[in-house]
């Protein structure tokens, strides 16, 4: 896997020669975009933070990978944390941060000590005086949202905050802050040193009704048929993009790219593909995911907190065979209201799975 190639601080050496501005220019030229799902140009994000006024700045590595069916960051942290740390050092250097945090998913506690050692080793070798602190999450899904991470690191309740202000302007402790995903930061040194590096190559977390679930390194634009083939998908009928991304109808020739997925009103997000075989009912899938969102809604905003309870209740009613046309209408209206009015990105996307399933698999709901 390309993402696991060791760079051994070659990029850091090059960055020190180039200086911050040219490094960010280079990253923009290479087209490195955020791997968390929003696909924002990493170099540009750093520039915002660099230009923002503040006597102190921070870098946060978002290692709170909590989306169902997503496990690519774990692979990187387990097998090539050195590149991530190098990425953090470079990011901090570019924006002018003296302190960085790794916000580690609570369930990845077992990686904590290992990461501590790697941080120490890499910082020593890089002769960097950056401070990197690991903060462990407590298991809340919402703490994958960057503004909730900020609240959590500040010892506040893990609640998201409206934007703007965006973190590069006003983030951790109200100081300019860059927050990047693990995979993004691991790609930073690779993009800097490898001429043939391409932003199109991503890690895909593939799971569900497949023989070989796991992380695959593929180009964006690969067809679903190819992925189904390598992972050994059995009679697929649908593919979910995580839980929040919603689903599409499976077809061999469906091209997996942000645009194409978006056209189906789903979201590619962090490239997590959950295959669903023909044996399953999409209603069961919907109930399972709705249960997850009901459990993980942080409780801050009305539509997500209250709405997800009723999404599940309506699905249960339909499952019992008691659903009528009004219930379907209400369910759809409710999902749209949550999508349209929820406070954070997670709330806004938590009903995509119902809306897309209703669109493509209405038959499963009858």
């Amino acid at each position, binding site marked *: 896997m390309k993402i696991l190639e060791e760079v051994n601080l070659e990029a850091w050496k090059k960055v020190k020669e180039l200086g911050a501005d040219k490094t960010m220019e280079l990253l923009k030229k290479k087209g490195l975009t955020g791997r968390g799902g929003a696909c924002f140009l990493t170099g540009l994000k750093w520039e915002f933070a660099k230009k923002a006024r503040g006597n102190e700045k921070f870098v946060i590595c978002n290692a709170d990978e909590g989306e169902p069916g997503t496990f690519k960051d774990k692979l990187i942290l387990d097998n090539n944390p050195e590149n991530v740390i190098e990425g953090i050092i470079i990011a901090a250097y570019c924006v002018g941060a003296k302190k960085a945090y790794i916000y580690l998913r609570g369930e990845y506690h077992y990686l904590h000590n290992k990461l501590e050692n790697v941080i120490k080793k890499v910082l020593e070798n890089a002769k960097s005086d950056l401070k990197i602190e690991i903060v462990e999450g407590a298991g809340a899904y919402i703490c994958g949202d960057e503004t909730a991470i900020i609240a959590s690191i500040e010892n506040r309740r893990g609640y998201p905050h409206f934007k703007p202000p965006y973190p590069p302007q006003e983030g951790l402790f109200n100081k300019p802050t860059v927050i990047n995903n693990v995979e993004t930061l691991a790609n930073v040194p690779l993009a800097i040193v490898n001429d043939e590096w391409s932003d199109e190559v991503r890690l895909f977390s593939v799971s569900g009704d497949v023989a070989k679930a796991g992380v695959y390194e593929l180009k964006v634009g690969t067809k679903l048929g190819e992925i189904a083939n390598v992972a050994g998908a059995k009679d697929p009928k649908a593919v979910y993009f995580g839980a929040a991304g919603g689903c599409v109808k499976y077809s061999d020739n469906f091209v997996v790219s942000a645009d194409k997925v978006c056209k189906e009103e789903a979201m590619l997000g962090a490239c997590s593909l959950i295959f669903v075989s023909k044996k399953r009912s999409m209603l069961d899938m919907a109930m399972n995911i709705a249960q997850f969102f009901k459990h993980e809604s942080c409780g801050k*905003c009305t539509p997500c907190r209250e709405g997800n309870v009723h999404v599940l209740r309506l699905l249960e009613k339909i499952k019992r065979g008691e659903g009528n046309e009004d219930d379907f209408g209400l369910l759809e209206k409710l999902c749209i209201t949550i999508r*349209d009015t929820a406070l954070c990105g997670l709330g806004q996307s938590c009903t995509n799975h119902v809306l897309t399933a209703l669109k493509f698999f209405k038959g499963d709901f009858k």
Partner: protein
Amino acid sequence: MKIIKLKINRKEVEAKDGEFIIDAAKRNGIDIPHFCYNERLERIGACRICVVEVKGMDKLQASCCTQVRGGMEISTHSPRVLEARRMNMQLLLANHDLYCTICKENLMCKLQRYASELMIEDTPFESLHREDEVDNSSVSIRRDNNKCILCEQCVRVCNNVQTVYAIGMVNRGVKTRITPNFGHNMKESSCINCGQCVVACPTGALTEKSDIQGVINALNSDKYLIVQTAPSIRATLGELFDIPAGTPVTGKMVTALRQIGFDKVFDTNIGADICIVEEANEFVGRVKNNGVLPMITTCCPAWIKFGEQFYYEELNKNMSTCRSPQAIVASLIKTYYAKNIKKDPKDIVLVDIMPCTAKKYEVLRPEFKGETDFVLTTVELGKLLKQLNVDFVHLPDSEFDNPLGMSTGAADIFGHTGGVMEAALRTAADMLSGEDLKAIDYTKIRGMDEIKETEVEIAGKKIKICVVHTTGAARKLLEQIKKGKSPYHFIEIMACYGGCIGGGGQPPPNSKGVLKKRTQALINVDEAKKIRKSHKNPAVIKLYKEYLGKPGSERAHKLLHTKYSKKTYV
């Protein structure tokens, strides 16, 4: 500031660049419904009732936390907006106790009001049937989580403004609740009873602990019934009867109280005048004899509990020993006045009408035991008068009873931030200089700034003054004193924003605009009075001559002063 143009509901309007949609709309005559937004609190964008449609933006936007931009086209009531707003309301209602007619907040509830305005006649969602235990442990505040809609106003007021941290959020998702720490109740918490959460709460989740029934029972007994009303009540009571904010209703209030059966209607104002005489005397004594400075006023029971909880060891010597005006009048009624009318104090029932939920706590302090029988807030008095069929608006005016009904302008201004200090300065300046000074308007300590300071020169001595309201602002000064770095000689602290006119028992909303009007009403009452210095009050002079002796005398100390003790909390 740059002015930009945008369109709201197809009409071109002007707005300040960077201001929030809800504020721009408000200035243009559009009152967008909202629960979590409060002009004085940090914006959180949680309730999603204030959503609007902005052309070019995919999702609906919460108008309380979306800034305006030039050329923006906003709709505050498109079909999409109304539908979403209605559904979010219905979601709240499905998780709410819907027994509106038997709710304490009935007719004052914002949830009820918006449900009515949005013409919501049912909710299509199954009721979640919440069954949370009602917390009745506090003597001031009743907490009914079944009616909480999680707008977090109370939490923000308590933590960010007051820095009391009595309540916070627990659990997640639909199980989220607001509660004191670690499952304790309100009584065990660090709550200072200020009631700012009560005024902020849009629903019946937080209400004052009601003593109305006790008063009705007393009114129907054969006891001798006395009532006293705090300085600020006259400026706020009218609002409960749809009289515009800032209209003093002193005369009607007195008539109403007499009409429902009180034998005597006294004015807490005379206690304020006595309080000033004692406090100014104490201050002058401290200045002359190099006593502990700064001296801090102690009219506010919520601040006293705050001080006793968080700063007792360091600051108890800085606190004036003077009782609050209400406690002074209460003590005089059950001693001096009872003797005067030859009644056993046990046969007198005293009801105090206060702007304040903390008063309910204060009168139960062991130091004041047996003095006041009931405390009603302004809101409770309004409810009582309505229950007893008082046609308030059409009542004629009448005067307070004597001997405890006469007061000066200095007492009226006790009701707003800076007023106690201004009144104290009027008297202390005369005392220190030995003259009858003409300049008595200390305008620098008026207004809504949270920390106001000034320096006055009295008899060649420079006196540094500071006035703060909200305990959060007070904490800054107290930290200074603790470190021995306070530059001040005399400090006034009021726990509530705006002072008593913004008290926890006042009619909501305690918005800046309303508070300014109430303040102005009190200033007008003061300016209209002939006597505006507490020590010039003939009734006070007579009282000292006949009963109390000199300010600071032994009897004065027994009846007009108090002591403090360390308070603990979990």
